[in-house]
């Protein structure tokens, strides 16, 4: 993908929609969203603009149209429990050239697994993560901490540091709240699959108890 594409078929402004005009309050809210480093809730916006919250909702509707993909390069997003501006994939190539770095590193499987455990079980301790994964999660957890996707949240009764996900995590994963993640039980096997698995394990256990050589199955 390159700028050529942009150059070759630039549609005249004639075709695009300008979106609605903004009233004074919408302009103020637009300014606040531009200035704030983190998403702002309607309540925070109402307090700052010194108006009622339902007037903020109206202004946000106007801004949503003005800042829709196609109408603007700056999009209004509802993320991490509030509203924020972000740019979209259509300007990513230009942004990459300007800042000469990709947006963010990808996640390794170990990091994604550790993040999933923290996201669903938070607060959860490092030893617990290790127990679930079967392999140590230390380096993955350190990287997630560095990247601001998880953070400490106190200690367990045994003194181990506990972790939770951050609002940065919600922002980067396009979520408004942690409960938007689907129920983890949806990935469980069907009862038939589970029964089969149980039976196989049972047979292996009996073979072992019967004194045969240990089957090397993990």
């Amino acid at each position, binding site marked *: 993908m390159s700028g050529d594409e942009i150059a070759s078929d630039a549609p005249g402004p004639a075709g695009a929609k300008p979106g609605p005009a903004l009233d004074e309050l919408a302009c103020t809210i637009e300014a606040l969203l*531009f*200035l*704030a*480093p983190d998403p702002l809730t309607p309540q925070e916006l109402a307090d700052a603009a010194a108006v009622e919250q339902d007037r903020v909702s109206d202004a946000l509707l106007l801004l949503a149209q003005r800042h829709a993909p196609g109408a603007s390069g700056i999009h209004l*997003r509802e993320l991490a429990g509030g509203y*924020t*501006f*972000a*740019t*979209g*994939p259509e*300007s*990513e190539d230009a*942004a990459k050239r300007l800042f000469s770095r990709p*947006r963010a590193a*990808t*996640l390794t*499987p170990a990091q*994604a*697994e550790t*993040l*999933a*455990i923290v*996201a*669903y079980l938070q607060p959860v301790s490092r030893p617990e993560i*290790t*127990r*679930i*994964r*079967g*392999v*140590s999660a230390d380096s993955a957890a350190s990287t997630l901490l560095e990247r601001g996707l998880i953070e400490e949240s106190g*200690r367990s009764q*045994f*003194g181990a540091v506990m972790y939770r996900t951050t609002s940065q995590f919600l*922002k*980067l*994963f*396009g*979520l408004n709240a942690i409960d938007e993640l*689907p129920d*983890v*039980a949806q*990935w*469980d*096997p069907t009862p038939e699959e*589970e029964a089969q*698995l*149980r039976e196989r*394990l*049972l047979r*292996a*256990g*009996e073979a*072992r*108890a019967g004194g045969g*050589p*240990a089957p*090397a199955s*993990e």
Partner: protein
Amino acid sequence: MTLPALDLDLDVFSGPFDLLLALVLREEIDLLELELADVVLAYLDHLEGRGELDLETATEFIVLIAALLELKSRLMLADDEQELLDLDPGEAAEELLERMLQARRFRSASTHLQQLFAREAGVRFRSAPPAAHLRKAIPAPADGSESPAVLGAAIGRLLRMPPVISLRHISTQRVTVAERLSHLRTLLRRGRFSFEEAVHGEDRMTVAVTVFALLELYKRGEAWWQQDESFGEIAVHAVASGRVGASIGASAG
């Protein structure tokens, strides 16, 4: 091929199998960091590459990997291990099944997270700080607004010792290559002994470590061994000085 020559390229280790074993047994590699399944896969790849199954090394491999698995599961189960050992096979299967399902659940969840992350590719946020005159508006918290009790309570939590873990079972199991080496060398003074004698009545972990010690002796040119038939007796011979080589090449392959 000899098993020690099996070359591995894993997340936490890259090099020959015997070095990996040595590092694990000396606790220089954390067994919990090691994906044993990857070791098995590497071995299967290796077998496939050779196109034939060498029963002897395959047996050796299974013994060693089983020992590693057992050691690792002990590490992972640690404090409730005693109870688990008392479980009947049915209960053990249930416990194992629960763990497998849990691991699988979060592996699938991680795939979902990866998809969410990919869907947000190309989304960027503004990171510029607000203008200086606006930042000045950020108020400092009021004097005395934090309670010193927060600090005392934090120190109290940090003073708490973690519960003592029972090492009783593991420490009785712990056996070092050095110990087994010296045991084998004692036996070697007779010139020859059978492997069965060396490990008679020992648990599997000790047997595995003894195999490793034996490999070590072979590597150092102190011993060679001979097995006339599969699963037959393994005779271990001391290497008389001056005749390192010939017979080893013939019997230890």
